[in-house]
């Protein structure tokens, strides 16, 4: 469609309405691009001055005004690990059921799909409330890395299932016929053929889920808590990096510099995770084109 677009006005005297549209579109684009550059520049300028190796490996001092973010990084990684270890098996199994065993468009498929879509749309603070009531209070885990990780597992489950389902569906049907012709069981087909074939797509989906979980704050404030000491077990409270940014900005006067530095670390992590996901997803796509 783009190639067919007339690139200039055919009349050499553009009417005022056309001129107005041109000016508004260009200025809207300029406003958006300018604001984005402003955000990026603030993050880089204010954040980069504080980041060095010692920022990453020392503990925060004076409520985070000075010192680094080592215990926060450890807590973040632990929370994400709990979330991944819980969510991935459930997500993979549900995706396998949806793509291999349930007929597309059947009532089962639609009801599972609807419930996943609603789940994916729930605001993160609602997950926080649920996590607090269910994991912290009802199951007695208290404010802990375990509660936070399990809450994030619930939150990322729909993304993980949907991406894994897409990945499994992309494996060409010939491979399934081949397995059937060899008399392989569905279990063997799944383990030995489908999952290895879809591995890059599955990993890419996992990366997206981790990225979403790492950016999360509202679901963690009252599940994994605020404590910024080095966690010694999964039942300790641990402060995730996004919660750290929030706390430094809102509750600590003079914490802005370290908040920006932590934000920059968070964004660097997110960008590397997303690039890895894109690269892996591209790899699957390429493989699909060459094999089919």
């Amino acid at each position, binding site marked *: 469609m783009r190639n067919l677009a007339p690139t200039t006005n055919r009349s050499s005297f553009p009417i005022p309405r056309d001129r107005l549209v041109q000016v508004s579109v260009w200025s809207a684009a300029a406003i958006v691009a300018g604001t984005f550059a402003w955000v990026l520049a603030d993050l880089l300028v204010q954040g980069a001055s504080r980041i060095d190796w010692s920022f990453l490996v020392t503990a925060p001092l004076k409520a985070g005004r000075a010192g680094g973010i080592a215990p926060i990084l450890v807590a973040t990684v632990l929370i994400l690990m709990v979330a991944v270890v819980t969510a991935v098996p459930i997500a993979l199994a549900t995706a396998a059921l949806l793509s291999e065993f349930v007929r597309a468009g059947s009532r089962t498929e639609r009801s599972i799909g609807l419930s996943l879509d609603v789940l994916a749309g729930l605001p993160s603070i609602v997950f926080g409330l649920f996590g607090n009531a269910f994991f912290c209070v009802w199951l007695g885990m208290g404010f802990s890395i375990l509660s936070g990780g399990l809450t994030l597992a619930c939150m990322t489950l729909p993304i993980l299932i949907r991406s894994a389902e897409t990945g499994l569906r992309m494996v060409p049907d010939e491979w399934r016929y081949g397995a059937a012709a060899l008399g*392989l069981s569905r279990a063997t087909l799944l383990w030995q053929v489908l999952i290895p074939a879809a591995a890059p797509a599955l990993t890419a989906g996992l990366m997206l889920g981790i990225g979403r979980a790492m950016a999360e704050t509202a679901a963690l404030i009252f599940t994994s808590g605020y404590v910024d000491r080095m966690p010694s077990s999964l039942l300790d409270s641990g402060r995730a990096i996004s919660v750290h940014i929030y706390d430094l900005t809102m509750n600590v006067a003079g914490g802005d510099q370290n908040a920006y530095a932590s*934000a920059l670390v968070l964004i660097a992590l997110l960008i590397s995770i997303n690039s890895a996901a894109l690269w892996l997803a591209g790899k699957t796509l390429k493989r699909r084109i060459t094999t089919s």
Partner: protein
Amino acid sequence: MSPSTRDRQLLRLLTVSAGLATGLLALIVLFLVRESWPVISRVGVVRFFLDQSWHPTEQSYGLTPMFVGSLATTGGAIVIAAPLGVASAVFCRFYAPEPMARIYRWAIILLAGLPSVVLGLWGLTAVVPLITQLHPPGTSLLAGSIVLALMILPTVALTTEGALASLPPSYWNGAAALGLSREAAILFVVLPAARGSIAAGVALAAGRALGETMAVLMVSGNVVRLPSSVFDPVRTLTANIALEMAYATGDHRASLFASGLLTAALVAVLAAMATRLGGGRTHA
């Protein structure tokens, strides 16, 4: 073990997992209702809107200021983000030269990936001081709307661009054959044809804005009062939960869960609207 036994075991395992994943939604709703039931059953839903003030420890449960705060920040964000988002998509598709369009699209996607807490931090240190100069206190409905707009703009821009890309080329050819200028074709052919999907994108974005907690919490001032201008501080339903959950007990805690249910219901309505708008209108 015979293949068929293994397969039956596998299917059982997968069904249990899918049951867990599907049951999670029911479990979440169940727990929200269970936790808010003490207040809902005793004072009813109506008093959340009719009570004069929000003093949940003194039997006064008026959520109206927060309800209005949520709707006002979301409405403001839509007013800013919808035109800019649609214009961004039009810019990318019809105006920008290819390399510029690619960079612009990349920036929009990066913006979509910025965590809300980072946008909140930026809003508080960059936008709020500017508004303070204009009209103190700075942390206000306006600041909340601007930061939310920045957050949802990519949603509007990307869904609109998707909608524009999926229009059949014959629309454009017909417009060209009629001798319409590029601007007239955009205004009177392309955008009207894509209006269903654009509306769906806006509804989706509104849902995200309404459910957002951190970004608004950090820049809106969080005073429980009906705003009388865009420079007044507001507190949203979500911010209210995040601020008070840490120390709430008893009926106070229960009423926070009730406002969580209310937020989830509002967001679900917007999501359903988005689905209807997106699926209902096709370009025949």
